[in-house]
């Protein structure tokens, strides 16, 4: 059970997964800049501990919803980077056969039941899955990832109210990266910087967590997940984190105060876990370097294979519209 302390293997795998997400996102950024990928994309460098630490609390049969900024969750849930690259390139070998794109890395077989491009839309969907579990008396839990900007839209309120009312096994996770597009939280969000407080009026527990510390993330999410699984109802968790890139491809993030990015990089989630693993003798600095190189090679190969993959045809994808 996830309430047990995560063992050394688990934490090593977290480290690898965070590295994979980082390398994947960096490569995507390059591919966009070079024009090899079009459209827009929303990267999550800096937020890896939130994705990986939270997903690490899921058990088989559990599900989650996330957002257009969901590459981290998708990879943490085990989507192959080649499949993810192919989707961003619009290739037939992508997770959605290329029709979904950057904002929709989805894998039902791994419990990733949706990456949504509409702010706030994933919360009711996760809640619905959770209520389904409850009705079916399955011991499963649904997680829902969304941003700080999403807490001001109606569905947040509507979903939290119903979740609490029905004591549904769902965990709401705010990835608070301080900005919604170009807007700092304080310019859009009343009630002060502590977003966990938004849980109060529903009689729901709300907890703020250091989102750069994967051990803290995992402990908090595991507690909420086990609570939900045991019939204790929903929770709201706020993960305090930061995105290193702008909102989307076209955003140079000029709105950041000087020094803010650098200060957050001082608390890089991969470095934090890396230092701990080295100190604890679980993964030496040298081994970490080797791991980085291996993952970089994996990413290089995956991007290359995705680049070589074919585009889908209308015929192949026409069955995506209607079931039957």
């Amino acid at each position, binding site marked *: 059970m996830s309430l047990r302390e995560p063992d050394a293997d688990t934490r090593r795998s977290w480290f690898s997964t965070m590295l994979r997400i980082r390398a994947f996102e960096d490569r995507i950024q390059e591919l966009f800049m070079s024009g090899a990928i079009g459209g827009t994309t929303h990267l999550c460098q800096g937020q890896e501990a939130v994705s990986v630490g939270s997903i690490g609390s899921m058990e088989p*049969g559990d*599900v989650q*919803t996330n957002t257009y900024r969901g590459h981290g969750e998708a990879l943490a849930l085990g989507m192959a980077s080649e499949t993810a690259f192919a989707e961003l390139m619009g290739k037939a070998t*992508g*997770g*959605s*056969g*290329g*029709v*979904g794109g950057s904002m*929709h890395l*989805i*894998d*039902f*077989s791994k419990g990733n*039941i*949706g990456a*949504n*491009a*509409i702010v*706030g*839309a994933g*919360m*009711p*969907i*996760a*809640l*619905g*899955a*959770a*209520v*389904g*579990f409850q*009705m*079916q*008396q*399955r011991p499963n839990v*649904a997680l829902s990832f969304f941003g700080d900007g999403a807490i001001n839209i*109606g*569905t947040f*309120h*509507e*979903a939290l*109210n*119903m979740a609490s*009312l029905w004591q549904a096994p769902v965990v709401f996770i705010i990835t608070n990266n301080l900005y919604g597009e170009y807007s700092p939280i304080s310019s859009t969000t009343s009630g002060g910087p502590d977003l966990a407080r938004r849980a109060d009026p529903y009689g729901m527990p709300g907890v703020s967590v250091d989102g750069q510390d994967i051990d803290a993330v995992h402990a908090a999410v595991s507690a909420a997940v086990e609570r939900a699984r045991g019939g204790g109802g929903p929770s709201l968790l706020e993960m305090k984190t930061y995105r290193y890139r702008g909102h989307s491809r076209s955003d140079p993030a000029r709105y950041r105060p000087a020094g803010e990015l650098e200060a957050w990089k001082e608390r890089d989630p991969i470095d934090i876990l890396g230092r701990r693993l080295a100190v604890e003798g679980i993964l030496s600095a040298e081994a970490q370097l080797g791991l980085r190189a291996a993952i970089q090679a994996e990413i290089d190969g995956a991007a290359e294979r995705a680049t070589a993959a074919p585009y889908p045809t209308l015929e192949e*994808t026409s*069955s*995506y*519209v*209607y*079931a*039957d």
Partner: protein
Amino acid sequence: MSTLTEPALVAVPAAGAAGTVELTYRDAINAALRDSMTDDVRVLLMGEDVGADGGVFKTNSGLIEDFGPARIRNTPICENAFVGVALGMSLVGLRPVVEIMFADFLPTAGDAIVNQLPKYRFMSGGQCSVPVTIRVIGGGTGQFGTQHSATYESWFGHLPGLRVATAATPGSAYSLLRAAIAHDNPVIVYEHKALYGRKGPVTRGEVAEIGKAQVLRTGSDVTILASMLMVERSLAAAETLAADGIAAEVIDLRWVRPIDLPTIRASVERTGRLVVAEEQVHAGGWGATVISELTMGGVAWRSAPRRVSLPDDYPVPYSPPLETLIVPSAAGIAAAARSAVGL
């Protein structure tokens, strides 16, 4: 498809009488819900007050007693989120039916209906199906006023991924709803609030064919195409017309998506004349779509097609004589048909 397994819900005893029975439109809906829930434990009904005193339009009488409050689930007032909840339920193997009390509240659930239900399977590359049914109550003539008389069914005909049905009779109300619930894609089924008391034959167990219109009366002079409340007014118009020696064919549209163009076209090719009777504004509606498709398809019109619609530039008013004036009447439909045949 999702790898998630079937739910472990408890079955309830089989429903009552099979065979064809005479039921009100209201009771036909009740029967369709009851039969669907009896046949399939994955089916549930949710919405505002669906389980309270039979629901606001009394379509759900006795359901909460027989199926319990988990499957007949009252929700808070929050249409957008509870349609999203239904979507989430469908992804883990349930088959929810959502009741939207008035069609005017569909825009409140706009995102869930427009961006989520119809696109969810597509965006995933076909990994899931979304068997969600939305029951919605539309239409005027009851003095419900400007914000409680909408239909808007044509909007959803604009959306790939959806199916949209409209019920004009108790028989259709039953079989269309059963078809929707049995279907693996999201379906919006319209009920019309002026029709709940109408009686007609209902065949328990009948499941309508998706996308099939219904010819309710045959005639060779003019085709009248209508939906919901306009169907009975069109039939009444056909009676008057018959007295004048005009043989009108009356077709119940039934499906706004997909529209049954083959059936409509076959009729119009025989009659050469068409009147669309719509309780909606013509611009952006299914009547315009049908006339456009037939014209593009080269139908040889014997006279220009006609429409009897809501006014182009006047919302549904409360005042009873005004409401009566603006909602198409049997007389208005008959007049259009007469003018189509040149009388």
